[in-house]
């Protein structure tokens, strides 16, 4: 099983998925991330899927679950770097990724989290 590293930048966690994850590794990442949000007091999570070649229903569900879960733990999640072919395929598959915020790249994702924060005051 592969483990995805979780990087910390200020109070943001950054997860960059660089390998083709099997389903068990996906579930492990979900749990690691929930633990890390709490233990590090993170306010934002960025999931970088630039290198991800396909998002099927399992990965799609992971993204929605992580977004909902971190929200409950008082953190916002932004998914960045989705490839155009992946977006086209997701829509045809029928996955809407409801509740998942997205940004085109890492930089825009960071800005989005900062805005979310300042809106909170």
């Amino acid at each position, binding site marked *: 099983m592969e483990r995805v590293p979780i990087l910390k930048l200020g109070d943001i966690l950054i997860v960059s998925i660089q390998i*083709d*994850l*099997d*389903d*068990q*590794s996906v579930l492990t990442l979900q749990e690691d991330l929930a633990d890390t949000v709490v233990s590090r007091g993170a306010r934002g999570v960025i999931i970088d899927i630039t290198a991800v*070649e*396909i*998002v*099927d*229903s*399992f990965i*799609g*569900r992971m993204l929605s679950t992580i977004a909902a879960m971190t929200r409950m733990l008082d953190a916002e999640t932004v998914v960045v770097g989705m*490839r*155009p*072919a*992946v977006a*086209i*395929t997701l829509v*045809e*598959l*029928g*996955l809407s990724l409801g509740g998942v915020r997205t940004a085109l790249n890492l930089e825009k994702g960071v800005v989005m989290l900062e805005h979310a924060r300042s809106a909170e005051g």
Partner: protein
Amino acid sequence: MSGPQEMPIATNGDVVLVRQKVRSVAAEIGLSLVDQTKIVTAASELARNVLVHAGGGRVEVEKVSTGLRPGLRLVFSDEGPGISDIAQAMTDGFTTGGGLGLGLSGSRRLVDEFDLVSAPGEGTRITVTKWSR
């Protein structure tokens, strides 16, 4: 042209290997990037179904041709419980396993040809084809 290549689907790792194999053959026959992504996504859904709903099975990966256009055909088969109501299983959102119920219906939209043969107690056989355009 080489004949069909059979791969087992018995573990989560096998599902990853199936995705990678389908990706490389899809690129080899010249499918567009979007079509490669679609067929790999469909393969991932159908391979997972074999593992989760039937406890394992196999896929045959084959390059096919109409003479003019190359294509990629995948045959997923298992000896699992089978599907009693195929129309219902093919409906968006129908699941018996707590999934999203998008695997079968979504895969059908992602390929050019989709054929499902199944009966209770007789396993399931799903054939999908994607043609290069």
